[in-house]
């Protein structure tokens, strides 16, 4: 039962433009959401998070938006840089399951010159 879904397996974007990555979830008990970035042969690296009490969180070039009514979150990267080429995972945790984070399948981002 996949409760966190990233329906776009890949995204290609030109350097300097905006990258928008989407994530949908089904569990209304999720209260905390994170985005991770992963390079080949490395573990995921934390990027940004958002609590369910907020609808936006910004950190430098990265902004995460949360729409609880739609059970949807998105990650915006502005401007996109070649080093942003990686796989991006969204993850979510329910308030009654402490450390049990559930991940989406990931979106491969390629930033072209």
């Amino acid at each position: 039962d996949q409760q966190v879904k990233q329906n776009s397996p890949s995204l290609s974007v030109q350097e300097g433009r905006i990258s928008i990555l989407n994530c949908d979830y089904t569990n209304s008990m999720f209260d905390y959401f994170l985005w991770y970035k992963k390079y080949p042969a490395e573990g995921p690296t934390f990027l940004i998070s958002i609590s369910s009490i907020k609808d936006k969180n910004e950190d430098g070039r990265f902004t995460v938006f949360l729409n609880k009514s739609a059970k949807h979150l998105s990650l915006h990267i502005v401007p996109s840089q070649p080093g942003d080429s990686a796989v991006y995972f969204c993850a979510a945790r329910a308030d009654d399951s402490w450390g049990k984070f559930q991940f989406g399948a990931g979106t491969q981002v390629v930033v072209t010159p």
Partner: protein
Amino acid sequence: GAGVSQSPRYKVAKRGQDVALRCDPISGHVSLFWYQQALGQGPEFLTYFQNEAQLDKSGLPSDRFFAERPEGSVSTLKIQRTQQEDSAVYLCASSGHGGAIYEQYFGPGTRLTVT
């Protein structure tokens, strides 16, 4: 240490063999997590420790999987009688916050291939 380390990085096991995968978390981190990542998929939660206590093992796929963290630091994930479907990358992560968990720091993973 500087980051989460895992060993071995690669493991090939014959079907039926037992394997042990080690995770060294960031020094002082209270929480430790194990995930299984199949090719082309996101990490799947296996189990979670807070110090030496295993608080959630609901993701372990069968009783062939066992994890321990006896002194609240290093953890070992053991898989008995390995099967081909166990082939995956096993990721370990640690976090400095007990209770509500926020930023997790991941190790590079152990790629297990069962032949």
